[in-house]
């Protein structure tokens, strides 16, 4: 089924390139990145110090279908276990974009 999902990843800014490469391999139609994200997790507080990017996270959001979602989640898992961060998946009930006609709205 072509149902749309949203995958959200927060992880160490240094791994952005790896994740982007990974998404390109999966062949997702697009992604969005917010660069200045701070936070707290198992590795303690990560607060940007303005000088280095050592304690900075990135937020990556991918809207995709369920199949892509599964591939992404699988591929991102080892990065998150090694470098930390979090990845969540949630439901999208409507999607508008150039790439895809709107998927059937699950509400209808």
């Amino acid at each position, binding site marked *: 089924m072509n149902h749309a999902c949203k995958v959200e990843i927060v992880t*160490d800014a*240094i791994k952005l390139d790896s994740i982007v490469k990974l998404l390109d391999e999966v062949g997702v139609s697009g992604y969005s990145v917010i660069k*200045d994200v701070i936070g707290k997790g198992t590795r*303690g507080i990560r607060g*940007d*110090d*303005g*000088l*280095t*990017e*050592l*304690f900075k996270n990135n937020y990556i959001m991918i809207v995709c279908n369920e199949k892509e979602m599964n591939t992404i989640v699988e591929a991102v898992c080892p990065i998150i276990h*090694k*470098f930390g961060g979090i990845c969540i998946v949630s439901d999208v009930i409507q999607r508008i974009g150039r790439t895809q006609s709107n998927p059937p709205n699950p509400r209808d």
Partner: protein
Amino acid sequence: MGIDFQLILSNLSHPPILFFFLGMIASFVKSDLKIPEPLPKLFSLYLLLAIGFHGGVELRKTGISHEVVYALSAALFMAVVVPIYAFFILRIKLDVYNSAAIAATYGSISAVTYITAVTFLQTLGIEPGGYMVAALALMEAPAIVIGIVLARLFAPKTEDNEFSWGEVFKEAFLNGSVLLITGSLLIGVISGEEGWDTLKPFTKDIFKGMLSFFLLDMGLLAAKRIGDLKSAGFFLPPFAIIVPVLNACMAIVIGRLIGLHPANTFMFAILSASASYIAVPAAMRLSLPEANPSLYVPMALAITFPFNITVGIPLYYYLIAKTNKFIPVLLEIP
């Protein structure tokens, strides 16, 4: 000792150092004073560009003499030896990954410590050789590679397939600060006196102002990181002072043995004593994510850096003045 004390005082009443203290105080009293991102980056890029360019112009004037070759060889020697011996000391208490990361931190250098030491010399009317900037550039990267090699050699083997030597070398030798300082040095060499006249108001005149501003931020940062050291135990804080002093002493002896000018020996000592809190941590986080940045960053930034710019600078200067006549010069510079 009298003269040493006065040197410390005169160093401490220098505006850049005072702004460093102001930053620390602001952070301790929990003021909301902050230098928002990316302004600290502006100052650090500026300082690297200015110091590299200045060094290049000076290097052009002196040319590549025997002393230059000696100094650079000694620099390379320290950059290789320090991370190795530091690693084995650290292994007494720490695991392989953290030992390797901290060893790399102390094997590399801090450009701002160097710069602060230069301004200290200048207030005494002494100007170190421009090629010492080349030594600075040369000492930044090797420790990164050595730290990672040590970790690979001694860590338990796992199915770690993400690792790439290409990336390690890129991180080590092409990181922003190495490249900017080396590039600016070359630009200084190429454009020489004429280039110097062009850029002097920018790279020289406002230099100490920019340094003051940057040290204000470093003070804020250093104080903020001190709290992280709670988890560091009783072993690491003394390490962060003793090893730098040890490295400085080694450098002082080596510098004298190979007949460096005392001013250059001083710069060599401060380079050896300094620890990296920008380039090395960035590389370690990528290559040794198992090491804990909340150990190696605050050690370098919140202990070694403040120690060096306040006590270390006059101390190493004093040591050189006192010991110089007791150490023989082995290599008479031709």
